[in-house]
């Protein structure tokens, strides 16, 4: 895995915090990041982990944000010959007692049609809509793309 150790430690720390403080919330969205090109971006990408600690499966149906008119779920697929294609996902199953990761080069959220120009440092709130009716709201600060991952 390309995940850095530091990142993993952070994730564990976050996990512990949530598990201790959150009470009985089976679903959570953690490590939300929104990344953007430094100048003139027309799209941004979102990465996160959806945890389902409950005994029932759920489905992520939709993600919305006041920052962009369109948020779509995508998966970058490498066809093995260097050709990368993005496949849109209309929904995403979140199995019981499992997690689903959105990470660079794999699943990601694509934000486009920005309501106001989105730049590094902007604050973005996103709402994750699950089929069970549960919604989770999370905010993050937009960061530049790239990094030692």
């Amino acid at each position, binding site marked *: 895995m*390309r995940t850095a150790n530091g990142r993993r430690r952070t994730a564990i720390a976050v996990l512990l915090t949530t598990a201790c403080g959150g009470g009985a919330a089976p679903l959570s969205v953690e490590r939300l990041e929104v*990344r*953007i*090109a*430094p*100048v*003139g*971006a*027309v*799209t*941004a*990408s979102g990465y996160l982990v959806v945890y389902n600690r409950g005994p029932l499966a759920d489905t992520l149906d939709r993600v919305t944000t006041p920052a962009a008119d*369109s948020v779509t779920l*995508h998966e*970058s697929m*490498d066809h093995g*010959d*260097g*050709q*990368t*294609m*993005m496949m*849109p996902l209309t929904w995403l199953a979140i199995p019981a007692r499992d997690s689903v990761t959105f990470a*660079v*080069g794999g699943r*990601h959220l*694509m*934000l*486009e*049609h920005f309501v106001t120009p989105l730049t590094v440092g902007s604050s973005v709130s996103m709402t994750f809509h699950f089929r069970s009716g549960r919604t989770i709201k999370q905010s993050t600060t937009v960061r*530049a*793309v*790239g*990094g*030692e*991952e």
Partner: protein
Amino acid sequence: MWLVLLALGTVACGGGIDRPLSPGGFIGAEVITPRPMPDVVLTDAKGQPYHLADATRGTVTLLFFGYMHCPDVCPVHLANIAAVLDKLPEEVSREVKVIFVTVDPARDSMAVLAPWVAGFDPRFIALTGSDSTIQAAQLAAGLLTAEKDTVTASAAGSYLVGHASQVIAHTRDGLGRVQYPFGTRQRDWAHDLPKLVEYGTGP
């Protein structure tokens, strides 16, 4: 400066390398039959003709085809290359040209493409052209040509573009010797870029 040398030293000593090097000592994938820089005329940010093969003769050139609406793969490659060039000694970074050719010229007008590319590093070169020239350039580079995904295109005019995600590094002789797939890390670039600059200059 010391920090930079120290960091470079660590990488060179093998601290960050966990995959075998190519016969030429690169982390990137060496091509068995390298192809020359595509002999095509594209258009630069000033609207001037840019003869790709002529303009890059004698320099190390990283050639990458992509598009601005690509949220995940294209900007990550460009950001990582820019970050590494920033940290490398000037003698190395000034020898490296980075060229981004849009495969989506209909949406990526130069008015928006040029600042987007320059935003990563003002030295990066943004190029556009006609669909047929861009296609010819990709074929000449040995890449599958980018394709507009018409199946998922939305009524609002959004669409995705499948495209080759590797960066092709051309050595000074104009041959595209080494390829860098998506997932190439900054430390991989930091290892290979000085080697690409050195390539062919030795005794």
